[in-house]
């Protein structure tokens, strides 16, 4: 599904953020990208989701080479990903419903279908009763669940979450991770970056980064059964 071949990423005036990255992620996999701060986790996810382009090497996603993709085609490719960020990136001048409906507006979905799909997504993350509330009134965990609802509403084939539990208490963090596991169970590819490896009840792949290089890329059986 996603293949990195000798990928390098260097920001102007800085050291290489990523060096010689080679990896392959298959459809329906659960992938944890681990590493300490500054290891290159976020850069890796940005390259995967076509937010940034590599300095060298090729990234192939569904037969598209992201390095060679034209600028005007990038938005259409990004629509295939569901993005979740550590800081949620919610819009606080809109209510929960309007936050979740944004990807559908971008995807040109008609209002009737949009409303139905937004409610289904909010129901999935347990926020259906809060659709008219402003996100600012929600707790940290609820805000992250709202961000997940926004990411899944357009039914992406890949969910990419950049440290989604970084700012949350353990209880909320487990709640969020359980939502990701449930999506993986229905065939969605889930890629999650985190400092430490969570205790996953299902099979997963770990990509461990140190100073922009992959030091470990293994498949793991569940730690918990």
């Amino acid at each position: 599904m996603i293949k990195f071949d000798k990928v390098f990423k260097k920001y102007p005036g800085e050291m290489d953020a990523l060096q010689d990255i080679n990896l392959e992620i298959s459809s329906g996999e659960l992938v944890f990208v681990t590493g300490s701060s500054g290891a290159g986790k976020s850069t890796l996810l940005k390259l995967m989701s076509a937010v940034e382009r590599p300095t060298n090497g090729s990234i192939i996603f569904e037969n598209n080479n992201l390095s060679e993709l034209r600028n005007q085609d990038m938005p259409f490719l990004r629509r295939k990903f569901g993005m979740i960020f550590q800081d949620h990136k919610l819009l606080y001048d809109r209510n929960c419903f309007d936050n979740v409906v944004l990807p559908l507006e971008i995807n040109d979905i008609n209002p009737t279908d949009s409303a139905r799909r937004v409610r289904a997504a909010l129901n999935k993350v347990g926020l259906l009763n809060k659709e008219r509330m402003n996100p600012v009134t929600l707790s940290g965990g609820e805000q992250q669940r709202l961000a997940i609802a926004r990411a899944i509403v357009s039914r992406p084939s890949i969910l990419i979450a950049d440290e989604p539990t970084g700012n949350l208490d353990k209880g909320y963090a487990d709640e969020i991770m359980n939502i990701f596991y449930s999506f993986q169970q229905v065939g969605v590819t889930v890629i999650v970056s985190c400092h430490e490896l969570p205790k996953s009840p299902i099979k997963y792949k770990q990509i461990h980064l140190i100073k922009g290089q992959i030091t470990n890329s293994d498949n793991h059986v569940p730690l918990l059964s």
Partner: protein
Amino acid sequence: MFRYFHNHFQAFSRGLIRIKSNLGGSIMMFIIIGITLCLPSAGYLIVENVRQISTKIQHEAEISIFLKKDISQDQIDFIDLALKSSSEIKKIHFEPKLVAWKKLQTKLKLSTLDVGISKNPLPHGFFITLNTLSKVKINQLTEDLKLIDGIDNIIVDGSWIKKLRAVIYIIKAGLFSLGALLVVVLIVIISNTIRLQTLTYQNEILVSKLIGATNSFIHRPFIYTGLIYGLGGGVITVSILKGTVIVFNNVAERYEYILGNSIVLLGLSSTDYLIILMSAMLIGLFSSFFSARQSIKRLENS
């Protein structure tokens, strides 16, 4: 097709929401655009009124033909006949020199002894009213009349109209320059407002980009906001102009008995008002389009 219109309707709604969310600032913006556009438009309104008056006056303009002092009656009759045969002449009035002299004396309340003039100094004169507005035809007629023996001098009484028209033309050119200058001012004001809006909605722009919004999707609400600013400003301009005409005419009507004449300020035509509205909307549209494009590009690069 439905999706295309739905997209635009959504962007328009978002533009309206943004205007509503900053209603005070938006109303200020309408007023600024309205008053700025009002300056050249009001000038145009005045010039149009003066131009219409000048056109009316020219209809009644006369050509004065003064005959030679030693002219015979036969020659006068010949000139009279020649004038009557011209299709450009509507009315002919002959004023014998004696009548003219008496009129002048009465007007100045003088007797011949007072001014020391024993002989009538005035010539016979024909005063003709034309039925044409064509400058070429009037010039041609004047040239033809000059060729007739016995005619001493020809004065086109409407020559001041020409001067007035030249002045109107200069004022119009001035108004055009002022209008162009004010359009630039409006573009700067609207562009700056839209630039500030892109900063206000920076988060929304960046999130939309991350989840796959195209540039046109992001630009559209800003463009509609500019368009609505233009429309609001245009409506204010038209309202001010219409209000001014109504108020002026009411006041003029009240003082008609003092002025002795009725002064009516004519409003602009519906087409003119429509042009003002469309211009305001176009100014809003173009300013916001370029400003949104530039600002969003800058945001992306930052």
